[in-house]
């Protein structure tokens, strides 16, 4: 059992980091601004896992007091990530608003096309 748990814990790390890399790649490598934003949110959500994964204690339950349980997973990361999610959606909304403005100004939301249009400075 512990062996599987250990395996899972490593597996969570691996997936988390994979998500991070993938998200970052999309942000850096894709020119389409909306896709950039999606990549950004993947990148951020991977961080959620970085915090939430370790908060889990095997055999413990969700941190809601209950007479049947004594062991609870760590509530602090939950609170932090709740905040982080909200920050994430705020960023996303603002980013989209900017994309809309840019589209109105340039008629495209492909970064490279914009740079071709009025010179990368």
């Amino acid at each position, binding site marked *: 059992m512990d062996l599987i748990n250990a395996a899972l814990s490593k597996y969570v790390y691996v997936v988390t980091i*994979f*998500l991070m890399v993938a998200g970052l*790649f999309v942000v850096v490598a894709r*020119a*389409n601004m909306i896709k950039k934003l999606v990549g950004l949110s993947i990148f951020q959500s991977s961080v959620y896992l970085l915090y*939430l994964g370790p*908060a889990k204690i095997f055999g413990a339950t969700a941190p809601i007091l209950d007479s049947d349980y004594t062991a609870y997973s*760590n509530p602090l990361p939950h609170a932090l990530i709740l905040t982080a999610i909200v920050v994430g959606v705020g960023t996303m909304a603002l980013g989209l608003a900017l994309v809309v403005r840019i589209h109105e100004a340039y008629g495209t939301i492909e970064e490279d096309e914009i740079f071709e249009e009025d010179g990368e400075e």
Partner: protein
Amino acid sequence: MELLISFALFTLLGVVTVAIVSQRNLVAVVILGSIYSFLIASVMVVLDAVDVALTEASVGAGISTVLLLAGLKLTRTRDYRGQDPNVVGALLAIAVGGALVWGSLVLPPFGAPDAPIHQHVAPRYIEGAGTEIGVPNIVTAVLADYRGFDTLGETTVVFVAGMAVLLLLRRSSLQSAPPSDDEQPAMSGDLVLRVGTKLILPFILLFALYVQFHGDYGPGGGFQAGVIAASAVILLGLTLGLRRARRIAPPALAHAMIPLGVLIFAGTGVATMLLGGDFLEYAVLAHEAKEGHHLGIMLVEAGVLVTVSGTMISLFYAFVERGR
């Protein structure tokens, strides 16, 4: 069993991510993103983070998706021409990943109860939620009380985002021309939808209220409730048309709610100061400390609800009206 689910979910997560990275049709990307959020939410449940799961579900799968679709509509983008693989980006991302692996190998393993994070600060919360504050949902206790100031900051972030989007997208004055009667709401054609919406609306709002006030005992709280309430209005706007939505939730009101919630939250803090406590020290709000904490948490959660729902509705209006 639980383990099996976990493995499966994580694997799926990876698969969906690959799909998102490679997919060119942006609509598909957005839908996949929504699925991705649901998966993450489920993963969070597995990790015992039920409150976070609820939030991610309502925000990631809900609001973000709506916003992204609106963005797509406004920028009239469907898909974009593929581009030559970006080596620099790949190398950069991989380098970062490498650093992470290298560093994380020596981190304490998951699930072990003897890790520092379970030993040092958290126990006080798990203890105190019951004894000091009297709120069964420990996350709520941490969120609204122990680290209530972070939550004020979080609400402020929503406030900033809302104001910023309004500043950027709002045409000249707050009231842009009310939509003409002949405008066709997105899906007004479908009778089932129209009736269905009418039927479901009360339940959505009811659920929102439940999430709001049950937040002390079960998963939930002002933020999730706010999003859910907003989604009711958004659904209304999508199916029955903006005009109806505006009549039920006037934009001006929505805009006013954004700062109002922050004022309620901060005002609670100021009140505690005036009563001789520190900022957001709820205990002073009532004769009996626990009463004070209850009152304080209720007030700030209300503030969060007001700001969040107001913001989400305003965002919806801002994006949709920018379109015409």
